[in-house]
């Protein structure tokens, strides 16, 4: 079980190419709920602060049908 440390955000790579992609990511994350996130479209990164574990977040992002992977924890600024 991986819970992550408090004050850390999870960073994911999501192969987004346009605004349609980032909107799709926004929708699936909103539907999951319990997440705060930033999407960096040019760098194809999604940074998530959430009560959900990494597996749940990864599964949710993969629903978009885009290539997705977990990059690691990122310190909150």
């Amino acid at each position: 079980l991986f819970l992550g440390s408090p004050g850390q955000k999870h960073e994911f790579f999501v192969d987004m190419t346009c605004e349609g992609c980032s909107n799709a990511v926004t929708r699936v994350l909103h539907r999951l709920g319990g997440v705060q996130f930033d999407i960096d479209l040019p760098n194809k990164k999604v940074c998530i602060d959430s009560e959900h574990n990494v597996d749940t977040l990864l599964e949710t992002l993969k629903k978009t049908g885009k290539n997705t992977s977990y990059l690691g924890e990122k310190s909150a600024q």
Partner: protein
Amino acid sequence: AKSIVISVEGMTCNSCVQTIEQHVGKMNGIHNIEVSLEDKNAVVIYDSKLQTPATLQEAIYDMGFDATLAD
């Protein structure tokens, strides 16, 4: 095989189109799917023993698009 038209909102380019075509195309019982950016819809030809209009609509909705069944 049956055919259905599903309205899809939220696509902005051809890669959106391809993502949906590839994802839904991989599902069981899909004979053909054609997504149109201009018409904002997906025309799916499917095996009604394996899929229903609702499962197809849900599959596109789950990907993060607004999908509705046209009547």
